[in-house]
Protein backbone atom coordinates (compact mmCIF):
# COMPACT_ATOMS: atom_id res chain seq x y z
CA UNK A 1 0.00 0.00 0.00
CA UNK A 2 1.66 3.10 -1.29
CA UNK A 3 0.15 5.41 1.32
CA UNK A 4 1.25 3.61 4.44
CA UNK A 5 4.94 4.45 4.45
CA UNK A 6 5.76 7.88 5.76
CA UNK A 7 8.98 9.65 4.89
CA UNK A 8 9.97 13.10 6.05
CA UNK A 9 9.81 14.20 2.44
CA UNK A 10 6.30 12.91 1.94
CA UNK A 11 5.17 14.56 5.16
CA UNK A 12 6.65 17.87 4.14
CA UNK A 13 5.32 17.70 0.56
CA UNK A 14 1.79 16.91 1.75
CA UNK A 15 1.74 19.64 4.40
CA UNK A 16 3.13 22.24 1.99
CA UNK A 17 0.61 21.27 -0.70
CA UNK A 18 -2.32 21.49 1.75
CA UNK A 19 -1.03 24.77 3.15
CA UNK A 20 -0.88 26.19 -0.38
CA UNK A 21 -4.43 24.93 -0.99
CA UNK A 22 -5.56 26.65 2.21
CA UNK A 23 -3.97 29.98 1.26
CA UNK A 24 -5.52 29.84 -2.21
CA UNK A 25 -8.89 28.95 -0.65
CA UNK A 26 -8.73 31.85 1.79
CA UNK A 27 -7.88 34.29 -0.98
CA UNK A 28 -10.52 32.92 -3.35
CA UNK A 29 -13.39 32.71 -0.87
CA UNK A 30 -12.68 36.23 0.37
CA UNK A 31 -13.90 37.33 -3.06
CA UNK A 32 -17.12 35.30 -2.83
CA UNK A 33 -20.27 36.45 -1.09
CA UNK A 34 -23.94 37.33 -1.49
CA UNK A 35 -23.00 40.75 -2.79
CA UNK A 36 -20.32 41.76 -5.25
CA UNK A 37 -17.32 43.59 -3.85
CA UNK A 38 -14.36 44.66 -5.92
CA UNK A 39 -10.89 44.04 -4.51
CA UNK A 40 -9.52 46.72 -6.84
CA UNK A 41 -11.86 49.36 -5.46
CA UNK A 42 -11.21 48.18 -1.89
CA UNK A 43 -7.44 48.59 -2.28
CA UNK A 44 -7.57 51.58 -4.61
CA UNK A 45 -7.37 55.27 -3.65
CA UNK A 46 -9.74 56.07 -0.79
CA UNK A 47 -10.16 52.35 -0.25
CA UNK A 48 -11.07 52.25 3.45
CA UNK A 49 -14.03 54.55 2.87
CA UNK A 50 -15.56 52.31 0.18
CA UNK A 51 -18.22 49.69 0.88
CA UNK A 52 -15.99 47.21 -0.96
CA UNK A 53 -13.27 47.64 1.67
CA UNK A 54 -15.72 47.30 4.54
CA UNK A 55 -17.18 44.16 2.97
CA UNK A 56 -13.93 42.37 2.13
CA UNK A 57 -11.60 43.50 4.90
CA UNK A 58 -13.95 44.06 7.84
CA UNK A 59 -16.61 41.39 7.39
CA UNK A 60 -15.53 38.69 4.94
CA UNK A 61 -11.85 38.08 5.65
CA UNK A 62 -12.14 37.72 9.45
CA UNK A 63 -14.99 35.30 8.91
CA UNK A 64 -13.02 33.26 6.36
CA UNK A 65 -10.04 33.10 8.72
CA UNK A 66 -12.24 32.07 11.64
CA UNK A 67 -13.72 29.33 9.42
CA UNK A 68 -10.22 28.05 8.68
CA UNK A 69 -9.27 27.89 12.36
CA UNK A 70 -12.56 26.31 13.44
CA UNK A 71 -12.55 23.78 10.59
CA UNK A 72 -8.95 22.86 11.34
CA UNK A 73 -9.57 22.49 15.07
CA UNK A 74 -12.66 20.30 14.68
CA UNK A 75 -11.04 18.13 12.04
CA UNK A 76 -7.75 17.58 13.91
CA UNK A 77 -9.68 16.83 17.10
CA UNK A 78 -11.81 14.33 15.17
CA UNK A 79 -8.76 12.56 13.75
CA UNK A 80 -7.18 12.29 17.20
CA UNK A 81 -10.37 11.05 18.85
CA UNK A 82 -10.97 8.39 16.21
CA UNK A 83 -7.51 6.98 16.97
CA UNK A 84 -7.73 7.51 20.72
CA UNK A 85 -11.11 5.84 21.13
CA UNK A 86 -10.44 3.28 18.37
CA UNK A 87 -13.85 4.11 16.98
CA UNK A 88 -14.48 5.28 13.43
CA UNK A 89 -17.64 7.11 14.52
CA UNK A 90 -15.84 9.28 17.06
CA UNK A 91 -16.20 12.98 16.34
CA UNK A 92 -15.60 16.19 18.30
CA UNK A 93 -19.21 16.67 19.48
CA UNK A 94 -19.40 13.13 20.86
CA UNK A 95 -17.41 13.85 24.02
CA UNK A 96 -20.01 16.04 25.64
CA UNK A 97 -17.60 18.97 25.51
CA UNK A 98 -19.65 20.82 22.87
CA UNK A 99 -22.92 20.34 24.68
CA UNK A 100 -21.33 21.59 27.89
CA UNK A 101 -20.31 24.67 25.93
CA UNK A 102 -23.82 25.01 24.52
CA UNK A 103 -25.49 24.80 27.92
CA UNK A 104 -23.14 27.32 29.54
CA UNK A 105 -23.49 29.67 26.57
CA UNK A 106 -27.24 29.35 26.79
CA UNK A 107 -27.23 30.16 30.50
CA UNK A 108 -25.19 33.29 29.75
CA UNK A 109 -27.72 34.29 27.07
CA UNK A 110 -30.69 33.72 29.37
CA UNK A 111 -28.92 35.72 32.09
CA UNK A 112 -28.97 38.62 29.66
CA UNK A 113 -25.62 38.52 27.85
CA UNK A 114 -25.70 39.52 24.21
CA UNK A 115 -24.65 36.79 21.75
CA UNK A 116 -21.98 39.05 20.25
CA UNK A 117 -20.48 40.07 23.58
CA UNK A 118 -17.30 38.23 24.68
CA UNK A 119 -19.22 36.97 27.71
CA UNK A 120 -21.00 34.22 25.79
CA UNK A 121 -17.92 32.57 24.23
CA UNK A 122 -16.15 32.90 27.59
CA UNK A 123 -19.04 31.13 29.35
CA UNK A 124 -19.18 28.49 26.60
CA UNK A 125 -15.46 27.86 26.95
CA UNK A 126 -15.76 27.50 30.71
CA UNK A 127 -18.69 25.13 30.24
CA UNK A 128 -16.66 23.04 27.81
CA UNK A 129 -13.73 22.79 30.23
CA UNK A 130 -16.04 21.89 33.10
CA UNK A 131 -17.71 19.15 31.08
CA UNK A 132 -14.32 17.86 29.94
CA UNK A 133 -13.19 17.46 33.54
CA UNK A 134 -16.50 15.86 34.44
CA UNK A 135 -16.36 13.33 31.60
CA UNK A 136 -12.77 12.43 32.37
CA UNK A 137 -13.37 11.96 36.09
CA UNK A 138 -16.61 10.06 35.58
CA UNK A 139 -14.98 7.71 33.08
CA UNK A 140 -12.09 6.93 35.43
CA UNK A 141 -11.85 4.12 37.93
CA UNK A 142 -8.75 2.93 39.82
CA UNK A 143 -6.71 5.56 38.01
CA UNK A 144 -7.58 4.16 34.59
CA UNK A 145 -9.96 5.06 31.82
CA UNK A 146 -11.22 2.99 28.91
CA UNK A 147 -12.28 4.28 25.50
CA UNK A 148 -15.71 2.75 26.08
CA UNK A 149 -16.22 4.57 29.33
CA UNK A 150 -15.18 7.92 27.82
CA UNK A 151 -17.55 7.42 24.89
CA UNK A 152 -20.49 6.40 27.05
CA UNK A 153 -20.07 9.20 29.56
CA UNK A 154 -19.73 11.65 26.67
CA UNK A 155 -22.93 10.39 25.05
CA UNK A 156 -24.78 10.62 28.37
CA UNK A 157 -23.49 14.19 28.87
CA UNK A 158 -24.83 15.06 25.41
CA UNK A 159 -28.24 13.67 26.31
CA UNK A 160 -28.33 15.59 29.59
CA UNK A 161 -27.26 18.79 27.86
CA UNK A 162 -29.86 18.36 25.11
CA UNK A 163 -32.50 17.94 27.79
CA UNK A 164 -31.25 21.02 29.65
CA UNK A 165 -31.48 23.04 26.44
CA UNK A 166 -35.06 21.86 25.84
CA UNK A 167 -35.93 22.57 29.45
CA UNK A 168 -34.67 26.12 29.25
CA UNK A 169 -36.45 26.62 25.93
CA UNK A 170 -39.67 25.45 27.54
CA UNK A 171 -39.51 27.89 30.44
CA UNK A 172 -37.67 30.84 28.89
CA UNK A 173 -39.58 33.81 27.55
CA UNK A 174 -40.47 33.92 23.89
CA UNK A 175 -37.67 36.37 22.98
CA UNK A 176 -35.05 34.50 25.00
CA UNK A 177 -35.93 31.14 23.48
CA UNK A 178 -35.65 32.68 20.04
CA UNK A 179 -32.19 34.11 20.80
CA UNK A 180 -30.91 30.83 22.22
CA UNK A 181 -32.20 28.84 19.25
CA UNK A 182 -30.39 31.08 16.77
CA UNK A 183 -27.17 30.93 18.78
CA UNK A 184 -27.15 27.15 19.09
CA UNK A 185 -27.70 26.76 15.34
CA UNK A 186 -24.15 27.98 15.06
CA UNK A 187 -22.52 30.29 12.58
CA UNK A 188 -19.18 31.67 11.55
CA UNK A 189 -19.46 35.34 12.09
CA UNK A 190 -16.92 37.73 13.45
CA UNK A 191 -15.44 41.08 12.59
CA UNK A 192 -12.66 40.78 15.14
CA UNK A 193 -9.15 39.89 13.99
CA UNK A 194 -8.12 39.78 17.66
CA UNK A 195 -10.60 36.96 18.32
CA UNK A 196 -9.37 35.08 15.24
CA UNK A 197 -5.75 35.46 16.36
CA UNK A 198 -6.57 34.29 19.88
CA UNK A 199 -8.37 31.18 18.66
CA UNK A 200 -5.64 30.52 16.07
CA UNK A 201 -2.80 30.59 18.61
CA UNK A 202 -4.82 28.32 20.83
CA UNK A 203 -5.66 25.92 17.99
CA UNK A 204 -2.05 25.67 16.83
CA UNK A 205 -0.90 24.94 20.38
CA UNK A 206 -3.53 22.20 20.63
CA UNK A 207 -2.48 20.79 17.28
CA UNK A 208 1.17 20.77 18.36
CA UNK A 209 0.22 18.92 21.53
CA UNK A 210 -1.65 16.31 19.50
CA UNK A 211 1.16 15.89 16.97
CA UNK A 212 3.60 15.33 19.84
CA UNK A 213 1.50 12.30 20.76
CA UNK A 214 1.02 11.09 17.19
CA UNK A 215 3.25 8.05 17.61
CA UNK A 216 1.37 6.93 20.72
CA UNK A 217 -1.91 7.35 18.84
CA UNK A 218 -0.53 5.12 16.07
CA UNK A 219 0.26 2.43 18.61
CA UNK A 220 -3.23 2.57 20.13
CA UNK A 221 -4.30 0.58 17.07
CA UNK A 222 -2.59 -2.42 18.71
CA UNK A 223 -5.05 -2.19 21.61
CA UNK A 224 -4.29 -1.03 25.16
CA UNK A 225 -2.12 -4.02 26.04
CA UNK A 226 -0.35 -4.01 22.69
CA UNK A 227 0.43 -0.33 23.03
CA UNK A 228 1.67 -0.88 26.58
CA UNK A 229 4.02 -3.61 25.39
CA UNK A 230 5.32 -1.28 22.69
CA UNK A 231 6.33 1.17 25.41
CA UNK A 232 3.38 3.61 25.42
CA UNK A 233 2.25 5.12 28.73
CA UNK A 234 -1.33 4.34 27.74
CA UNK A 235 -3.11 6.24 30.51
CA UNK A 236 -0.85 9.29 30.27
CA UNK A 237 -1.13 9.49 26.49
CA UNK A 238 -4.89 9.01 26.61
CA UNK A 239 -5.28 11.80 29.13
CA UNK A 240 -3.04 14.15 27.13
CA UNK A 241 -4.84 13.51 23.85
CA UNK A 242 -8.27 13.73 25.46
CA UNK A 243 -7.44 17.08 27.04
CA UNK A 244 -5.79 18.50 23.90
CA UNK A 245 -8.67 17.43 21.66
CA UNK A 246 -11.22 18.78 24.14
CA UNK A 247 -9.45 22.13 24.29
CA UNK A 248 -9.49 22.35 20.50
CA UNK A 249 -13.19 21.56 20.42
CA UNK A 250 -13.93 23.95 23.28
CA UNK A 251 -12.27 26.86 21.47
CA UNK A 252 -14.00 26.06 18.18
CA UNK A 253 -17.47 25.58 19.64
CA UNK A 254 -17.34 28.64 21.85
CA UNK A 255 -16.81 30.92 18.86
CA UNK A 256 -18.93 29.14 16.25
CA UNK A 257 -21.60 26.97 17.87
CA UNK A 258 -22.10 23.36 16.87
CA UNK A 259 -20.84 22.87 13.33
CA UNK A 260 -21.15 19.19 12.62
CA UNK A 261 -19.61 16.72 10.20
CA UNK A 262 -16.25 18.45 9.64
CA UNK A 263 -14.61 16.48 12.44
CA UNK A 264 -16.05 13.21 11.18
CA UNK A 265 -15.61 13.20 7.43
CA UNK A 266 -12.44 15.20 6.81
CA UNK A 267 -10.18 12.86 8.85
CA UNK A 268 -11.79 9.79 7.25
CA UNK A 269 -11.44 11.27 3.80
CA UNK A 270 -7.78 12.05 4.35
CA UNK A 271 -7.18 8.63 5.89
CA UNK A 272 -8.51 7.07 2.71
CA UNK A 273 -6.10 9.13 0.65
CA UNK A 274 -3.03 9.43 2.91
CA UNK A 275 -3.14 6.33 5.10
CA UNK A 276 -3.55 6.06 8.86
CA UNK A 277 -0.21 7.45 10.15
CA UNK A 278 -1.16 10.13 12.70
CA UNK A 279 2.09 12.04 12.23
CA UNK A 280 0.81 12.95 8.77
CA UNK A 281 -2.91 12.63 9.37
CA UNK A 282 -3.11 15.16 12.22
CA UNK A 283 -1.55 18.15 10.44
CA UNK A 284 -3.22 17.13 7.17
CA UNK A 285 -6.60 16.94 8.92
CA UNK A 286 -6.10 20.39 10.37
CA UNK A 287 -5.30 21.92 6.98
CA UNK A 288 -7.90 19.84 5.14
CA UNK A 289 -10.60 20.71 7.67
CA UNK A 290 -9.70 24.37 7.28
CA UNK A 291 -10.00 24.19 3.49
CA UNK A 292 -13.28 22.26 3.71
CA UNK A 293 -15.00 24.64 6.14
CA UNK A 294 -13.79 27.75 4.33
CA UNK A 295 -15.45 26.52 1.12
CA UNK A 296 -18.52 25.19 2.89
CA UNK A 297 -19.03 28.60 4.47
CA UNK A 298 -18.54 30.33 1.12
CA UNK A 299 -21.30 28.10 -0.27
CA UNK A 300 -23.48 28.78 2.79
CA UNK A 301 -23.34 32.53 2.33
CA UNK A 302 -23.97 32.52 -1.43
CA UNK A 303 -26.29 29.57 -2.15
CA UNK A 304 -29.61 31.28 -1.33
CA UNK A 305 -28.82 34.76 -2.63
CA UNK A 306 -29.27 37.43 0.02
CA UNK A 307 -30.13 34.91 2.73
CA UNK A 308 -27.56 32.54 4.19
CA UNK A 309 -27.76 28.85 4.98
CA UNK A 310 -26.50 27.59 8.33
CA UNK A 311 -23.01 26.34 7.51
CA UNK A 312 -23.73 23.02 9.23
CA UNK A 313 -26.35 22.30 6.58
CA UNK A 314 -23.74 22.65 3.86
CA UNK A 315 -21.09 20.55 5.62
CA UNK A 316 -23.54 17.67 6.04
CA UNK A 317 -25.30 17.95 2.66
CA UNK A 318 -22.11 18.22 0.63
CA UNK A 319 -19.74 16.25 2.82
CA UNK A 320 -21.99 13.28 3.54
CA UNK A 321 -22.68 12.02 0.00
CA UNK A 322 -19.11 12.75 -1.10
CA UNK A 323 -17.83 10.68 1.78
CA UNK A 324 -20.10 7.75 0.93
CA UNK A 325 -18.91 7.98 -2.70
CA UNK A 326 -15.25 7.77 -1.64
CA UNK A 327 -15.99 4.92 0.74
CA UNK A 328 -17.79 2.98 -2.01
CA UNK A 329 -14.82 3.39 -4.34
CA UNK A 330 -12.47 2.17 -1.65
CA UNK A 331 -14.70 -0.82 -0.90
CA UNK A 332 -14.93 -1.73 -4.57
CA UNK A 333 -11.14 -1.76 -4.76
CA UNK A 334 -10.37 -3.65 -1.55
CA UNK A 335 -13.17 -6.23 -1.59
CA UNK A 336 -12.73 -8.98 -4.16
Amino acid sequence: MRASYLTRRRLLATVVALLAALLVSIAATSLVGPVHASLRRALGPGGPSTPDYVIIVRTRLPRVLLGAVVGGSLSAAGAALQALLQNPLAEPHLLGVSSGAAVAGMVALIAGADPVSPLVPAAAFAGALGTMALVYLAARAHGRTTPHAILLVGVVCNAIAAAAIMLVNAIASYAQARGVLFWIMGALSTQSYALVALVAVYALAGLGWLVAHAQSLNLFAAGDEGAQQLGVDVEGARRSVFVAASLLVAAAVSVSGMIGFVGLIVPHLLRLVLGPDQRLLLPASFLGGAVFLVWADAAARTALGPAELPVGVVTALVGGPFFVFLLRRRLARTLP
Partner: protein
Amino acid sequence: MRAACATLLVLATVGCAPVPSGAGGGPPARVVSLAPSLTEIVWALGAGERLVGVCAQCDYPPAVAALPRVGGYLAPSVEAVIGVRPDLVVVVPSPGNREAVRALERVGVRVLVVHDRTLDDLRASVRALAGALGLTAAGERLVADVDHGLAAVHARVAGLPARRVLLVVGHSPLVVAGAGTLQDELLTIAGGTNVAADAGQAWPQVAPELVVARAPEVIVDAAMGTEAGGHDLFAGLTTVPAVRDGRVVALRGDALFRAGPRVVEAAEALVRAIHPEAGG
Protein backbone atom coordinates in the same frame (compact mmCIF):
# COMPACT_ATOMS: atom_id res chain seq x y z
CA MET B 1 -51.39 -5.95 27.24
CA ARG B 2 -52.73 -3.79 24.47
CA ALA B 3 -56.26 -4.36 25.74
CA ALA B 4 -55.16 -3.30 29.20
CA CYS B 5 -53.65 -0.12 27.79
CA ALA B 6 -56.80 0.63 25.85
CA THR B 7 -58.89 0.10 28.97
CA LEU B 8 -56.64 2.42 30.93
CA LEU B 9 -56.91 5.02 28.20
CA VAL B 10 -60.69 4.78 28.20
CA LEU B 11 -60.78 5.01 31.99
CA ALA B 12 -58.47 8.01 31.89
CA THR B 13 -60.72 9.68 29.34
CA VAL B 14 -63.85 8.89 31.30
CA GLY B 15 -62.12 10.18 34.40
CA CYS B 16 -61.84 13.55 32.72
CA ALA B 17 -65.40 13.45 31.49
CA PRO B 18 -66.85 16.33 33.52
CA VAL B 19 -65.53 18.80 31.00
CA PRO B 20 -68.34 21.25 30.31
CA SER B 21 -68.11 21.25 26.52
CA GLY B 22 -70.13 24.36 25.90
CA ALA B 23 -73.00 22.82 27.81
CA GLY B 24 -76.16 24.84 27.73
CA GLY B 25 -75.22 26.51 24.43
CA GLY B 26 -74.22 29.80 26.08
CA PRO B 27 -70.90 31.51 25.26
CA PRO B 28 -67.83 29.81 26.74
CA ALA B 29 -67.15 30.87 30.31
CA ARG B 30 -63.87 29.06 30.92
CA VAL B 31 -61.23 29.91 28.30
CA VAL B 32 -57.64 28.73 27.97
CA SER B 33 -55.25 30.69 25.73
CA LEU B 34 -52.14 28.94 24.44
CA ALA B 35 -50.43 31.92 22.80
CA PRO B 36 -49.27 35.31 24.13
CA SER B 37 -50.93 37.15 21.23
CA LEU B 38 -54.27 35.44 21.79
CA THR B 39 -54.19 36.13 25.54
CA GLU B 40 -53.80 39.82 24.73
CA ILE B 41 -56.70 39.68 22.27
CA VAL B 42 -59.03 37.91 24.71
CA TRP B 43 -58.15 40.53 27.32
CA ALA B 44 -58.69 43.43 24.92
CA LEU B 45 -62.11 42.01 24.03
CA GLY B 46 -63.04 42.47 27.68
CA ALA B 47 -63.16 38.74 28.35
CA GLY B 48 -60.11 38.61 30.58
CA GLU B 49 -62.08 37.34 33.55
CA ARG B 50 -63.10 34.26 31.54
CA LEU B 51 -59.46 33.12 31.19
CA VAL B 52 -58.79 30.13 33.43
CA GLY B 53 -55.39 29.19 32.05
CA VAL B 54 -52.63 30.67 29.86
CA CYS B 55 -49.34 29.50 28.34
CA ALA B 56 -46.01 29.88 30.14
CA GLN B 57 -44.98 32.71 27.79
CA CYS B 58 -48.21 34.69 28.22
CA ASP B 59 -47.07 37.76 30.18
CA TYR B 60 -49.33 40.63 29.09
CA PRO B 61 -51.29 42.32 30.52
CA PRO B 62 -49.58 41.97 33.92
CA ALA B 63 -52.83 40.68 35.44
CA VAL B 64 -52.40 37.32 33.66
CA ALA B 65 -49.48 36.59 36.01
CA ALA B 66 -52.02 35.31 38.54
CA LEU B 67 -53.54 32.74 36.15
CA PRO B 68 -52.63 29.04 36.10
CA ARG B 69 -49.96 28.11 33.52
CA VAL B 70 -50.89 25.15 31.34
CA GLY B 71 -47.56 24.52 29.64
CA GLY B 72 -45.39 26.18 27.02
CA TYR B 73 -46.52 28.10 23.97
CA LEU B 74 -44.85 25.49 21.76
CA ALA B 75 -45.66 22.46 23.93
CA PRO B 76 -48.80 22.81 26.01
CA SER B 77 -49.66 20.21 28.62
CA VAL B 78 -52.86 18.38 27.70
CA GLU B 79 -53.40 17.33 31.31
CA ALA B 80 -52.95 20.83 32.67
CA VAL B 81 -55.37 22.22 30.08
CA ILE B 82 -58.01 19.58 30.88
CA GLY B 83 -57.35 20.15 34.57
CA VAL B 84 -58.72 23.72 34.47
CA ARG B 85 -61.91 22.39 32.75
CA PRO B 86 -62.08 24.83 29.82
CA ASP B 87 -65.01 25.04 27.45
CA LEU B 88 -62.88 26.81 24.86
CA VAL B 89 -59.16 26.55 24.09
CA VAL B 90 -57.66 29.10 21.68
CA VAL B 91 -54.38 28.24 20.00
CA VAL B 92 -52.00 29.21 17.21
CA PRO B 93 -50.95 26.29 14.96
CA SER B 94 -47.41 24.97 15.43
CA PRO B 95 -45.77 21.59 14.87
CA GLY B 96 -45.19 21.34 18.63
CA ASN B 97 -48.83 21.62 19.69
CA ARG B 98 -50.56 19.65 16.92
CA GLU B 99 -50.75 16.46 18.97
CA ALA B 100 -51.96 18.34 22.03
CA VAL B 101 -54.73 19.99 19.98
CA ARG B 102 -55.83 16.59 18.65
CA ALA B 103 -55.82 15.09 22.14
CA LEU B 104 -57.96 17.97 23.47
CA GLU B 105 -60.44 17.58 20.62
CA ARG B 106 -60.63 13.83 21.27
CA VAL B 107 -61.78 14.39 24.84
CA GLY B 108 -64.41 16.82 23.64
CA VAL B 109 -62.81 20.18 24.41
CA ARG B 110 -63.68 22.84 21.86
CA VAL B 111 -60.47 24.15 20.26
CA LEU B 112 -60.28 27.27 18.12
CA VAL B 113 -57.18 27.49 15.92
CA VAL B 114 -56.24 30.93 14.53
CA HIS B 115 -53.11 32.34 12.89
CA ASP B 116 -50.93 35.19 14.17
CA ARG B 117 -48.37 35.97 11.48
CA THR B 118 -49.69 39.14 9.82
CA LEU B 119 -52.06 42.06 10.33
CA ASP B 120 -54.71 40.22 8.30
CA ASP B 121 -54.26 37.27 10.65
CA LEU B 122 -54.77 39.67 13.55
CA ARG B 123 -58.08 40.99 12.15
CA ALA B 124 -59.27 37.47 11.39
CA SER B 125 -58.28 36.09 14.79
CA VAL B 126 -59.92 39.01 16.66
CA ARG B 127 -63.17 38.35 14.74
CA ALA B 128 -62.95 34.58 15.25
CA LEU B 129 -62.26 34.89 18.97
CA ALA B 130 -64.98 37.52 19.40
CA GLY B 131 -67.44 35.27 17.54
CA ALA B 132 -66.59 32.27 19.68
CA LEU B 133 -66.90 34.32 22.88
CA GLY B 134 -70.22 35.84 21.83
CA LEU B 135 -68.67 39.30 21.65
CA THR B 136 -69.05 40.05 17.94
CA ALA B 137 -69.63 43.76 18.45
CA ALA B 138 -66.59 44.12 20.72
CA GLY B 139 -64.57 42.28 18.06
CA GLU B 140 -65.56 44.74 15.35
CA ARG B 141 -64.75 47.63 17.70
CA LEU B 142 -61.29 46.18 18.45
CA VAL B 143 -60.51 45.66 14.75
CA ALA B 144 -61.61 49.25 14.06
CA ASP B 145 -59.50 50.54 16.98
CA VAL B 146 -56.40 48.77 15.69
CA ASP B 147 -57.00 49.96 12.13
CA HIS B 148 -57.61 53.55 13.24
CA GLY B 149 -54.56 53.43 15.49
CA LEU B 150 -52.34 52.20 12.66
CA ALA B 151 -53.83 54.77 10.26
CA ALA B 152 -53.09 57.54 12.76
CA VAL B 153 -49.49 56.35 13.11
CA HIS B 154 -49.13 56.22 9.33
CA ALA B 155 -50.60 59.72 8.98
CA ARG B 156 -47.74 61.11 11.07
CA VAL B 157 -45.17 59.94 8.52
CA ALA B 158 -47.33 60.52 5.43
CA GLY B 159 -45.39 63.55 4.16
CA LEU B 160 -41.96 62.13 4.96
CA PRO B 161 -39.77 60.20 2.52
CA ALA B 162 -39.67 56.46 3.30
CA ARG B 163 -36.36 55.52 4.97
CA ARG B 164 -34.44 52.35 4.16
CA VAL B 165 -34.63 50.15 7.26
CA LEU B 166 -33.09 46.88 8.43
CA LEU B 167 -34.94 45.19 11.29
CA VAL B 168 -32.63 42.91 13.25
CA VAL B 169 -34.07 40.10 15.40
CA GLY B 170 -30.95 38.01 16.12
CA HIS B 171 -27.27 38.93 16.49
CA SER B 172 -25.32 35.72 16.16
CA PRO B 173 -26.06 34.70 13.51
CA LEU B 174 -27.50 37.89 12.10
CA VAL B 175 -31.22 37.28 11.52
CA VAL B 176 -33.53 39.96 10.16
CA ALA B 177 -37.21 40.40 9.34
CA GLY B 178 -38.05 39.64 5.71
CA ALA B 179 -41.17 40.18 3.63
CA GLY B 180 -44.52 38.69 4.60
CA THR B 181 -44.03 39.25 8.32
CA LEU B 182 -46.01 41.37 10.74
CA GLN B 183 -42.81 43.30 11.40
CA ASP B 184 -42.38 44.11 7.70
CA GLU B 185 -45.97 45.44 7.60
CA LEU B 186 -45.51 47.58 10.73
CA LEU B 187 -42.21 48.91 9.42
CA THR B 188 -43.92 50.01 6.20
CA ILE B 189 -46.72 51.70 8.16
CA ALA B 190 -44.06 53.51 10.22
CA GLY B 191 -42.57 55.07 7.08
CA GLY B 192 -39.81 52.57 6.34
CA THR B 193 -38.78 50.37 3.43
CA ASN B 194 -37.47 46.96 4.43
CA VAL B 195 -34.06 46.48 2.77
CA ALA B 196 -34.30 42.71 3.38
CA ALA B 197 -37.72 42.34 1.74
CA ASP B 198 -36.25 40.50 -1.25
CA ALA B 199 -34.44 37.84 0.80
CA GLY B 200 -37.08 35.26 -0.05
CA GLN B 201 -37.71 34.20 3.55
CA ALA B 202 -39.69 35.49 6.49
CA TRP B 203 -36.67 35.40 8.83
CA PRO B 204 -33.55 35.32 6.65
CA GLN B 205 -30.12 34.81 8.17
CA VAL B 206 -27.87 37.31 6.40
CA ALA B 207 -24.17 38.10 6.22
CA PRO B 208 -23.01 41.44 7.66
CA GLU B 209 -21.75 42.29 4.19
CA LEU B 210 -25.35 42.37 3.00
CA VAL B 211 -25.94 45.17 5.50
CA VAL B 212 -23.04 47.06 3.90
CA ALA B 213 -24.38 46.51 0.39
CA ARG B 214 -27.99 47.43 1.23
CA ALA B 215 -26.83 50.54 3.15
CA PRO B 216 -29.89 50.99 5.39
CA GLU B 217 -30.50 54.50 6.76
CA VAL B 218 -31.87 53.06 10.01
CA ILE B 219 -31.07 49.79 11.77
CA VAL B 220 -33.76 48.79 14.23
CA ASP B 221 -32.19 46.29 16.62
CA ALA B 222 -34.98 44.26 18.19
CA ALA B 223 -32.72 41.37 19.21
CA MET B 224 -32.64 40.47 22.86
CA GLY B 225 -29.64 41.62 24.88
CA THR B 226 -27.74 44.78 25.47
CA GLU B 227 -27.48 47.79 23.23
CA ALA B 228 -23.69 47.57 23.44
CA GLY B 229 -23.82 44.21 21.68
CA GLY B 230 -25.58 45.70 18.69
CA HIS B 231 -23.05 48.48 18.53
CA ASP B 232 -20.17 46.00 18.44
CA LEU B 233 -21.89 44.19 15.64
CA PHE B 234 -22.39 47.18 13.37
CA ALA B 235 -19.69 49.63 14.51
CA GLY B 236 -17.17 48.48 11.90
CA LEU B 237 -19.60 48.94 9.02
CA THR B 238 -18.68 52.60 8.69
CA THR B 239 -20.02 53.10 5.18
CA VAL B 240 -23.56 52.19 6.25
CA PRO B 241 -25.58 55.43 6.64
CA ALA B 242 -27.34 54.14 9.78
CA VAL B 243 -23.97 53.54 11.45
CA ARG B 244 -22.40 56.74 10.15
CA ASP B 245 -25.34 58.89 11.31
CA GLY B 246 -25.87 57.12 14.62
CA ARG B 247 -29.24 55.64 13.71
CA VAL B 248 -28.78 52.14 15.13
CA VAL B 249 -31.76 52.01 17.47
CA ALA B 250 -32.39 49.31 20.07
CA LEU B 251 -36.05 48.37 20.41
CA ARG B 252 -37.10 46.41 23.45
CA GLY B 253 -40.22 44.56 24.41
CA ASP B 254 -42.37 41.92 22.83
CA ALA B 255 -45.10 44.11 21.32
CA LEU B 256 -43.37 44.04 17.93
CA PHE B 257 -43.48 40.23 17.90
CA ARG B 258 -47.13 39.70 18.75
CA ALA B 259 -50.05 39.99 16.36
CA GLY B 260 -52.16 41.42 19.18
CA PRO B 261 -53.80 44.75 20.05
CA ARG B 262 -50.41 46.28 20.92
CA VAL B 263 -49.32 46.39 17.26
CA VAL B 264 -50.26 50.08 17.38
CA GLU B 265 -47.74 50.61 20.21
CA ALA B 266 -45.15 48.71 18.19
CA ALA B 267 -45.80 50.87 15.12
CA GLU B 268 -45.41 54.01 17.27
CA ALA B 269 -42.08 52.73 18.61
CA LEU B 270 -40.95 52.09 15.03
CA VAL B 271 -41.87 55.66 14.04
CA ARG B 272 -39.74 56.99 16.93
CA ALA B 273 -36.85 54.87 15.63
CA ILE B 274 -37.28 55.54 11.91
CA HIS B 275 -38.64 59.10 11.87
CA PRO B 276 -37.74 60.73 15.19
CA GLU B 277 -38.49 64.10 13.53
CA ALA B 278 -42.18 63.09 13.30
CA GLY B 279 -42.48 63.78 17.04
CA GLY B 280 -44.83 62.01 19.42
